């Protein structure tokens, strides 16, 4: 694809009609479109993608609602607000590919209804003119998509038409992006044609085998049956792997969608996280409160003992004193004294008569004694009360500690309740509360992805085992056929189909392996040419993996991708694209433009210099959409030195959000550029 001309009518900030002729051919292939921020550089990138693929959104629009994203020039719609006529926004692109020229045009109508912008697609029209000058035109969206996709696959467009600051993302591609890229690369390299041939011969082989199975007998029948079962299981697994790929792709897209939705409410995500954490703490504390209340239930009786502690102490001391005075237990039991009094004689034989000193003494003794039951009771009570009083202090301390703990926990709970109240006010409406649901949904998707990836790995492993098994059974089959001298037509055809499939598979493996190696070697070559002096000391080889993801190795041959800067990633991606283009074009340079928005934003001066010096020679067409901070006199001087820079456009603001595109002579460019010297 070589871009010839792009025209814009009332597209985005380009009010009225504007035209850009792209530099192309041997005399010059570099076009610079220069403008300050907000002047519409990305608008041109957007126009290109809209015209080719009908895409209205760029990756950077993820957080912009559809109704806020309008392609029709706003001032023009404002001017027609009164007459209620829609404004037509049109993008026209003329390009050449494979000896044919293409004229692609897409338009969209827009008008203001109150404060709202209403837009309506008018579809597209593609005119193809072949080398003989014969033209065909189509408005069929599917046909247009097929033709454009055949020239530059949608999955690969970001390799050639890209935002310079985001191209480094190619080095961070997710599995589904890699799959999309892998499909695109295979299409670009025409590998998918070979894959279709393998599938066809394999189908034929299976058909012939199934026919043979109906006729075979004995051991051969058993072996063919085994092979058929392996084939069936393999097909089943391959289909499942394909389905897993699709499911992973959808899950990835869904996750991205949820992430976009979550990004819109990112400001409350922190609140939600805080709320979740507070609610968890709230639950913990409430459980603690319940436990403490349970402890309190067990403690009420013991604490109540304290209410009568003085009484218990008084009784205890009374008994204790009696004990100390030896009143209890009595030295002589009261029943013995009573018997001596009634008998009127002491044990020693002394007479105890009323009125005598002996009688008075023994009566005093009797009064000090207690009856045996009461005495036993007192002694038991003394024992119990001594136990009770020894626990008073412990009971008091335990109760106080329990009440204090409770107060601390309740205080913290009160603080949490207040915080939660504030947070809930901040989180507000139910619409916002949906973020929690989205978060949950995202977790479910992530779990699904993990599960699918596990299943994918298992299926791939099983497939490899089946392939081994198949080889063994196939060997056995050959031996049996040889022993039995089976060489009928059907067997020969089946064997031929098998051999053809295997040969094609080998070719495929060899070709893709060689292609990957070639891309890796060329990418490394370009990478080294583009890298600054310092980075060259560390970074060495680019390797293309089987899924067309890329890795860079350091001087010690260790993977180093995770450690390189965004600028180095950008350089690496560009080197990969150049190598990919070269591989796709064979010996020649691939006819594909490099359309770079904000090409040097993240690059050092040395990287810029290398890029400006080398890229014009590697590609057929280079279109740069640059701002004054990245394209100054230094860059212009380098680019002019290549002799390939022939077109220069200035995006100039005309007020009220409109921009005009002015063509400027390359020789006059310095007058518009800043004097930014190397090394600054």
């Amino acid at each position, binding site marked *: 694809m070589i871009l010839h001309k792009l025209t814009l009518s009332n597209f985005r900030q380009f009010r009225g009609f504007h035209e850009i002729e792209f530099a192309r051919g041997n005399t010059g292939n570099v076009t610079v479109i220069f403008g300050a921020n907000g002047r519409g550089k990305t608008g041109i990138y957007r126009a290109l993608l809209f015209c080719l693929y009908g895409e209205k959104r760029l990756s950077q629009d993820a957080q912009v609602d559809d109704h806020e994203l309008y392609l029709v020039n706003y001032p023009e719609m404002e001017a027609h607000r009164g007459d209620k006529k829609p404004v037509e926004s049109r993008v026209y692109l003329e390009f050449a590919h494979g000896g044919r020229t293409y004229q692609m045009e897409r338009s969209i109508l827009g008008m203001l209804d109150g404060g709202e912008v209403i837009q309506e697609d008018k579809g597209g029209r593609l005119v193809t003119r072949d080398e003989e000058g014969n033209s065909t035109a189509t408005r069929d969206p599917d046909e247009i998509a097929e033709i454009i996709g055949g020239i530059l696959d949608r999955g690969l467009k970001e390799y050639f038409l890209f935002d310079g600051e985001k191209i480094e993302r190619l080095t961070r591609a997710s599995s589904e992006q890699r799959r999309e890229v892998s499909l695109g690369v295979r299409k670009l390299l025409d590998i998918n044609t070979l894959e279709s041939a393998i599938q066809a011969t394999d189908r034929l082989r299976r058909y012939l085998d199934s026919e043979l199975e109906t006729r075979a007998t004995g051991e051969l029948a058993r072996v063919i049956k085994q092979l058929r079962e392996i084939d069936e299981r393999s097909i089943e697994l391959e289909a499942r792997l394909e389905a897993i790929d699709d499911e992973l792709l959808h899950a990835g897209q869904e996750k991205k969608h949820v992430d976009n939705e979550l990004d819109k409410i990112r400001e409350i995500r922190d609140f939600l996280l805080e709320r979740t954490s507070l609610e968890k703490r709230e639950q913990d504390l409430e459980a603690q409160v319940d436990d403490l*209340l349970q402890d309190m*239930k067990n403690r*009420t009786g013991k604490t109540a003992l304290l209410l*009568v502690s003085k009484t218990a102490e008084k009784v205890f001391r009374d008994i204790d004193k009696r004990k100390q005075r030896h009143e209890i237990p009595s030295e002589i039991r009261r029943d013995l004294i009573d018997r001596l009094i009634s008998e009127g004689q002491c044990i020693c034989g002394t007479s105890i008569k009323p009125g005598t000193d002996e009688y008075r003494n023994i009566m005093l003794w009797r009064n000090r004694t207690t009856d045996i039951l009461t005495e036993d009771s007192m002694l038991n009570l003394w024992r119990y*009360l001594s136990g009770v009083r020894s626990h008073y202090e412990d009971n*008091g301390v335990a*109760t106080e500690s329990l*009440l204090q703990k409770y107060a601390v926990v309740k205080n913290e709970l009160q603080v949490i309740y207040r915080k939660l109240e504030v947070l809930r006010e901040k989180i507000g409406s139910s619409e916002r509360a949906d973020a929690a649901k989205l978060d949950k949904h995202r977790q479910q998707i992530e779990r699904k992805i993990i599960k699918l990836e596990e299943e994918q790995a298992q299926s791939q492993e099983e497939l490899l085992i089946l392939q081994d098994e198949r080889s063994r059974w196939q060997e056995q089959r050959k031996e049996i056929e040889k022993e039995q001298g089976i060489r009928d037509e059907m067997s020969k055809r089946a064997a031929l189909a098998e051999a053809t499939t295997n040969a094609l598979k080998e070719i495929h493996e060899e070709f893709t392996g060689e292609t990957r190696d070639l891309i890796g070697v060329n990418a490394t070559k370009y990478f080294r040419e583009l890298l600054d002096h310092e980075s060259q000391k560390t970074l060495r080889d680019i390797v293309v993996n089987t899924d067309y993801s890329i890795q860079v190795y350091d001087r010690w041959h260790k993977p180093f991708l995770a450690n390189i800067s965004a600028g180095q990633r950008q350089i690496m991606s560009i080197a990969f694209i150049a190598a990919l283009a070269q591989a796709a074009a064979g010996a020649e340079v691939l006819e594909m433009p490099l359309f770079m928005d904000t090409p040097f934003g993240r690059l050092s001066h040395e990287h810029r210099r290398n890029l400006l010096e080398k890229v014009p020679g590697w590609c057929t067409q280079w279109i740069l959409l640059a701002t004054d901070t990245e394209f100054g006199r230094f860059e212009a001087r380098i680019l002019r030195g290549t002799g390939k820079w022939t077109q220069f456009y200035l995006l100039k603001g005309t007020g009220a959000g409109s921009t005009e595109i002015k063509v400027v002579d390359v020789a006059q460019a310095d007058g518009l550029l800043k004097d930014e010297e190397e090394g600054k």
Partner: protein
Amino acid sequence: MNMAGDIRVRTARQHRTLYNDFRNFVVKDMHEIFFLCACLGYREGKRRPLGRDGDDRFWSSTITPEEYASFYAMVIESSDMDFSAIADDRIVIATMEEYANAGMQILLRGVIADYILDHGDELRLDPGCSKELPKVLLSHVYEMAGE
């Protein structure tokens, strides 16, 4: 003084449900709230005979030795340190029933007044707000004990 376990301890008929509620929400067992009420009544020097208004609430076997010992101490002190007053456990329990009955009245008019639902003949704890009652009661008892 045998710490007899075969005595049916009585409380006011009107407090039947209340005792059950206390067991559910505030204490572990009925004897504990009975003990608490008896202590409160005793501290305040108030007795309230049950007369015909009482019915059996729980067996004395559930009363702990510590509680029984405290009951004996109360009876002894209230009878001018006459230790023979505790000879008969039935009399001791009967005395405590009167103190407990008065003690419950003290609770009802004081600290738990806001937690009571009055259904005419029957009083009960308001289940809607009784969760915190163990703490309320424990704090109250602890404060009183310190006075």
